[in-house]
């Protein structure tokens, strides 16, 4: 999997690179408008993370260029501006997704995985982890081929944790992803705990070979034994 990150903020870029490299992707970077234009002209990428405000030009112009080259498939706009205009313009130009800054690394992974999933597995979207099969489209979970009934929130929590397998997912990232970003500031997200508890119980009862580990005070990590 080849990913291009177009981002001018060095620290931000480094965070994204470090985090995504753990997933064994091949990462390339561009830190300004012209570099980005050069790279998209020459190479093919499975996913492009595109910052809108760049030195030397507007990221939306890069998107236009990608559209001309018919390479907009897999583009995720990453914009610091909390602007609906950017989002609308970007999606109209053919971007796959829009990720507003600031974001959690877990959210970045979820978005990237979702794009890659769509691109690589036409028809089959299933995520398989040991004896657990998750279909993000139909919201169905099977353990050893047997249906595991989960409510919407439990399913979303599980999918998010599976997407970020073996990585720490903070409570905030999880809450914002599953309950929407309006949920913030609510009691340090203690309420997530009861959802996790139910989910753990259901996974255990169905003998799923995955485990949700709590990381003290910060969040959760999904481990596949």
């Amino acid at each position: 999997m080849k990913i291009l990150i177009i981002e001018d903020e060095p620290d931000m870029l480094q965070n994204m690179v470090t985090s995504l490299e753990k997933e064994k992707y091949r990462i390339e970077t561009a830190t300004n408008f012209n570099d980005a234009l050069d790279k998209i002209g020459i190479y093919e990428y499975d996913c492009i993370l595109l910052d809108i405000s760049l030195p030397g030009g507007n990221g939306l112009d890069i998107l236009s260029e990608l559209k001309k080259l018919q390479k907009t498939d897999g583009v995720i706009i990453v914009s610091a501006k909390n602007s609906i205009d950017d989002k609308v313009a970007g999606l109209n130009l053919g971007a796959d997704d829009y990720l507003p800054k600031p974001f959690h690394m877990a959210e970045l992974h979820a978005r990237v995985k979702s794009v890659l999933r769509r691109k690589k597995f036409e028809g089959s979207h299933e995520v398989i982890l040991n004896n657990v099969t998750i279909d993000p489209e139909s919201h169905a979970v099977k353990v050893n081929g047997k249906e595991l009934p989960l409510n919407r929130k439990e399913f979303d929590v599980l999918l998010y944790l599976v997407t970020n397998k073996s990585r720490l997912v903070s409570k905030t990232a999880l809450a914002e992803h599953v309950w929407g970003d309006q949920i913030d500031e609510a009691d340090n997200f203690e309420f997530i705990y009861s959802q996790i508890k139910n989910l753990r119980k259901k996974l255990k009862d169905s003998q799923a070979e995955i485990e949700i580990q709590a990381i003290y005070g910060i969040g959760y990590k999904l481990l596949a034994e």
Partner: protein
Amino acid sequence: MKLLNYTSAYFAGILLLIISIWAGLFYFSMLDEIYDSMDDGLENQKILVIRKASADTTILNQPEFEAGYFTIKEIPFPKAQTYTDTYQDTLMYMENEEDYEPVRLLRTAFHHPNGRYYELQLITSMVEEDDLIADLLYSLVWLYLGLVASILLLNNFLLRKIWKPFYRLLERLQKFRLEDQQPLKTTKTNIEEFKLLNETVQKLIKSNIAAFNSQKQFIENASHELQTPLAISLNKLELLVENNNLSEAQLEILASIINNLERSTRLNKSLSQLSRIENRQFPEVAATNFNDLIKKQLEDLTDLAEHREVTLHLEEQGNLQAQVNPDLANILITNLLKNAISHNISGGTVKVQVKPESLTVQNTGSGNALDPQQIFNRFYKGEQNSGSTGLGLAIVKAITDLYGFRIEYSFQDGKHRFTVYLT
């Protein structure tokens, strides 16, 4: 008291004083002139009577006034020698008036060609002082009333016209709102002072608008600039925590740092949201159904409410719809609901009531009534709650202000109640 009435009252008072003093002076000077003129007349009659007496000695013996206007009486020489002319006021019975009336009397002495000395008394009827005073008083009262009436007329027509630019300015100042960002329009005037006033007020308002804008700009820029370093720090911490070699004690410290940074991020996000609402950066509007949004929000908040042991109730008495920005409508509802859940008690309730024109969120709470004057202020915290930014209700107020909605807070039977009227 209005400016016009104020000057009128002053004028009326001052006029009363001036006219009283003037009336006194006028009365005495007029009286003086009258006496002068009467005395001249008496003097003239004296000459005429003496001349007549020289020719006609029959009139020499007339000790009483009777039909005439004079008396003549012989007096011895020594008395005549020391005699001086005296004028005096006296009373005399007047047949026509059937009353004693004041007369002017001249006493004098003369030497007749027959060698004898005579005393001559002459009278002339005099002004009736009380009548004069009464007449004067009446005319002065009329004059005073006339003057006051003219002043009132003048004030109402002339002054009103003159002060027009001032009243216009006042009217516009009353309607002025800094948020509208509209410079104040003034009426053109030729009066120097008003020109200066207009210019000064315009200058003041311009600099106020500029200060207001730069303050808003500052908050917006500051929160925007803070966003990236906060995000980078948080992301780096997330990467650090993924490191498996950390001890529980180290994780505890990292958790605390992450929590605090996340709090800063939330605060920053809320501030930025608030300033963007105040800067009217949500121009898109659409027909928004509040009932749907509320139902969706209540569903999303169920887990939080269950965790807090708070039950949520929805009572739909009608459909609430408005042309607003859907994101802002969502923020408005979420903030009200989260506020009601967060500041609740274990086993408490949140009741949402939707009517065709209003939305009410009522919740049980531990505290007393909050200060309705301050509750919508930034960073006002009724009770300490570490998770809260203190901006939720300020954002609610900013949204209602943006669309001209009205929000009311009340406290009854231990329940806090927020009602938004969309009309």
